């Protein structure tokens, strides 16, 4: 009756590895169109949370709903409009930039193997679409010059950008970014920030990102979720969260202390 239902609804999610609680009854919502950042000290459970949302780790209990329906398996994610990147890039290193980005669209293909081999039926149309969308995303992220380079030979910062391009190629409704700036130089970080904002604004993608760099997060996000030792300790706008004593305790305590 009040506002539209959340795009992503995380309810009471718990996860344990070898008896250690990685996530402890975490709940929060992500609204359509917002940029939500998950922050917290090392080992707070940020990456585990992204892995649960993207179906790579089944949660021990609780539920993850996307557009009102539960998310269960990693394989149905792409089809439902969710894409992700990894903390340590997961790219097809032996293939070109263009091939990598085109593969981001592969799951939408309906052509049978025979249609593909003979280049008849749906195959040529699907290939053209994957190609055009890949080209558009490469232009958006300013890596069109590298389209025929082998990904394994590119510098790390560019690889992260290729991974972002591959995730954006199918125009996902929700994009999960696991530490998109990790291991980057200052300039690379600034570029990456710009590209993430561009993607958000031009494509209207809802973003959930895990990030270490508080400065980046404050500039980028509308909504902060703070984790510590697997528990949610704060949830709100960047300003509200920044002044929260519990956050200062967990964050500043662990960094400055």
């Amino acid at each position, binding site marked *: 009756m009040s506002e539209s239902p959340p795009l992503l609804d995380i309810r009471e999610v718990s996860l344990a590895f070898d008896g250690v609680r990685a996530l402890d009854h975490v709940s929060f919502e992500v609204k359509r169109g917002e940029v939500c950042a998950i922050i917290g000290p090392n080992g707070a459970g940020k990456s585990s949370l992204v892995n649960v949302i*993207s179906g*790579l780790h089944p949660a021990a209990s609780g539920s993850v709903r996307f557009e009102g329906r539960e998310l269960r398996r*990693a*394989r149905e*994610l*792409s*089809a439902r409009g969710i*894409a*992700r990147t*990894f903390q340590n890039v*997961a*790219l*097809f*290193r*032996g*293939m070109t930039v263009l*091939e990598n980005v*085109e*593969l*981001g669209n*592969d*799951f939408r*293909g309906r*052509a049978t*193997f025979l249609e*593909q*081999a003979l280049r008849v039926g749906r*195959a040529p149309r*699907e*290939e053209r679409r*994957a190609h055009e969308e890949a080209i558009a995303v490469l232009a958006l992220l300013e890596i069109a010059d590298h389209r025929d380079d082998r990904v*394994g030979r590119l510098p*790390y910062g560019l690889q992260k950008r290729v991974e972002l391009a*591959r995730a954006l190629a199918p125009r996902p409704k929700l994009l999960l970014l696991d530490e998109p700036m990790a291991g980057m130089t200052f300039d690379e970080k600034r570029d990456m920030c710009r590209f993430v904002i561009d993607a958000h604004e031009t494509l209207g993608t809802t973003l959930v990102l895990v990030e270490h760099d508080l400065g980046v997060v404050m500039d980028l996000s509308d909504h902060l979720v703070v984790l510590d030792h697997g528990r949610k300790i704060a949830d709100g706008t960047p300003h509200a969260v920044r002044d929260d004593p519990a956050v200062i305790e967990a964050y500043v305590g662990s960094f400055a202390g």
Partner: protein
Amino acid sequence: MSFFLEVLIGGLLAGVMYTMVALGFVLIYKASGVFNFAQGAMVLFAALTFVTLSEHGLAFPWALAASVAVMLVLAVAIERVVLRPLVNAPPMALFLATLGLAFVLEGLAQLLYGTQVHGLDLGISDAPIHGLPIEVSRFDLLAAGIAAALVATLGVLFQTTRAGVGLRAVADDPLAAVAVGLDLPRLWAIAWGGAGVVALVAGLLWGARVGVQFSLSLVVLKALPVLIIGGFSSIGGVIAGGLIVGASEKLAEVYVGSHLGGGTETWFPYVLAVAFLLARPTGLFGERLVERV
């Protein structure tokens, strides 16, 4: 000199036959990173299917088409029953599953087709072609032609179809493949189907040479040195590997074997493979892993 050339060319053509067998391993290794112990059993099963259908009066093209269909159905069944339950299992578990599959296939072949030895006549004479400066067997030449056509087709499919690109992607990074939503079960079925068709062609050519019988599944032993020399993950590698094994074993037999009392051919490829393991463990074209440190 012409004798040397004759031995060399005879060896290269024999090597093509080894490449045919090794190719099936490469297809599956590329797609799922597993050494398919059942490849030999698939060669046998395919050849027995074809021979039995032929002996029941099916004409060559129909028997061939039916055998291809059987191998494709088999591939889909293997994906459903063997591979799908083992998703995310360590490679050793998958390897052992293919070991079990080898026994199941051989047992199934006995049950369905019996145990007698079948002759297989593809209607190609093994006599040397006349009029050439050196003697070359017509059968060897044709086998080489068929193998070349098969390799070229596979190469084109791998490079140009989305499924081929997808298979390369899975081999490259399985986690990323899951993340972009590639349909792994479908890709596996395609890879095993391809390996099944390759097994059929290898089974027919080898069956015509040595007869279709249970020892046919042992031709894979000759594929091992080819794979070690060429690398498990490269189609180009097994072509080179097959040619090297074929040529070197025949040359060794003729020029070294005469001093050792013969029989060199049977062990020489393995010695060569061991030498390669010491010098180039990933094979000629095998991928070397470069990790970011």
